[in-house]
């Protein structure tokens, strides 16, 4: 490559590098650095190095309960999303129907409509006079309306609905990129039906499963809007806690320490992406 080409190439990368450096790398690093500084009620921080914030998060019962609850909810949401997402991804990757494009679009469309829209949908569905309670009452299963809003159960259902597309797409990619000849070979060699699926297809789609699970897990752990609007009042999650620490308590160092736990989760994704290899 000639020198002029190299210079032109550098010029092309100038805008994105400048933006990421000034508005992403530097501010995020500064923010995370606050996590090892001391809290000051009237200022952002005191310039004193301390591990106090992490100690409080990991040893104070109040914060520990929030972290434990967050991990539990994230694990449940991930497992349920996998149970729903895998069959859907498999269906989309293998179906021969002419409607495939439309069916694909129906999975993408909710994703594009934004978190608020979908959260609102569940608030309407789960209300005391909402559709779920109306139907259950009409069928005769219940007499008094069930409390679904502001419960952990309701929150988990809504989060699964909001995040399941993030599970479907990586698995779909893995299945669509899978060489069908491998399955044919297994079949020719005598493996029947489900055995081909469990011993060939499922292991080969592992990269998609890992990627999708990491995505759903982190997005659940960092959720703020859905838990704030329809989660239990006394059962907050990590993302919500960060929001409140900055929004009302103004304890930046502790918020930074909590956020770095979220980043730890995100490293899981990068690691999964690195391990799954095929897509960078």
């Amino acid at each position: 490559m000639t020198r002029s080409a190299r210079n032109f190439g550098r010029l092309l990368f100038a805008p994105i590098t400048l933006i990421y450096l000034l508005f992403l790398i530097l501010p995020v690093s500064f923010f995370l650095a606050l996590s090892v500084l001391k809290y000051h009620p009237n200022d952002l921080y005191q310039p004193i190095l301390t591990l106090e914030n992490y100690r409080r998060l990991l040893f104070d019962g109040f914060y520990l309960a929030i972290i434990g609850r967050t991990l539990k909810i994230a694990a449940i949401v991930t497992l349920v999303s996998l149970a729903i997402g895998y069959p859907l991804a498999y269906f989309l990757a293998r179906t021969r129907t002419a409607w495939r494009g439309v069916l694909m679009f129906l999975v993408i469309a909710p994703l594009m409509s934004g978190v608020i829209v979908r959260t609102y949908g569940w608030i309407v569905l789960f209300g005391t006079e909402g559709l779920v309670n109306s139907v259950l009452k009409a069928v005769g299963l219940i007499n008094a309306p069930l409390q679904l809003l502001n419960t952990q159960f309701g929150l988990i259902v809504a989060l699964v609905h909001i995040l399941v597309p993030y599970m479907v797409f990586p698995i779909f990619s893995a299945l669509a990129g899978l060489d069908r000849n491998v399955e044919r070979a297994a079949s020719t060699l005598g493996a029947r039906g489900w055995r081909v699926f469990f011993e060939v297809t499922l292991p080969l789609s592992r990269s998609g499963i890992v990627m999708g699970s990491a995505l759903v897990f982190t997005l659940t752990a960092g959720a703020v809007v859905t838990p704030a609007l329809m989660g239990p009042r006394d059962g907050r999650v990590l993302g919500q806690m960060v929001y409140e620490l900055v929004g009302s308590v103004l304890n930046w160092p502790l918020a930074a320490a909590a956020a770095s736990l979220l980043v730890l989760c995100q490293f899981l994704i990068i690691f999964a992406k690195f391990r799954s290899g095929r897509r960078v």
Partner: protein
Amino acid sequence: MSDGATAAPRARLSAGLPPAPRVNLGPAQRLLAGLLVTLIYVFLLTPIVIVVAASFNPGQSNALPTGGLSLRWYRDFAGSDGFVNAFKFSLQLGLVAAIAATAIGLVTAYGIVRFLGRRRALGQAFALMPMMIPHILISLALLLMLTQIPLPEAAVLLIGHVMICLPFTVAGIIASLEGVDHQLEMAAWTLGASRWRILWEITIPLVAPGLVSSLLFAFIVSFGDVYISLFLSSPGKTTLPIEIFTFMLWDSSPVIAAITTVQMLMIIALGLAIERLVGLRKVMRL
């Protein structure tokens, strides 16, 4: 993306082979699988359909089923300054962010495809960085920056939106650029065109559909964002999702259903346009 490039040779290879085995065997199992997929779709679509239904509710509460049809909540929406202004602000912000993210995405994608050679994967990973960091963290970090450096809040909000759109625009435009024959650019270069002229007169017209769809997709990403705007909205400069979020923290009324229905119709129309232009799968790197 992964099957597009290899589909043709693979189809030829498997021409004389037996059909690939499928899981479903008996008719009973087929029926069960069909039922399962239908149920999943019901689960996915009910909350969205329900919002549309609730928006025509004549009553005060979110009760369903409703006792009649009414457009009163759409009138409420049109009459509410807060929501209308937020809607307008989100439109403007989305438009500017989409244009900026597509322009920067174009030069970056061009650089990645044509000038990085073996370091291409690294460049792609760098462009995807905002996707790797929780958005709430980006928002907090930018707010922190505002407390230290006096910058206009709206400008920082815009940059935040541009950053979360960039991973999508870069990836989408890379996919489009891969379809452009490098020989055409080489020919123009041999004939004496400058590098900028080649980009402007050869490459850009060839990837135009990809650019339009990346513009639309970036707009969708910006318009639906809550997390970046959560800490960066200021009085008079609040995005629609944040206006709805703060309203819903204290109150719930079918006016939200009317607003979100309008928003969804707009986004579905844009999504269909992208599907027509290049296919959504390409933009979303599937």
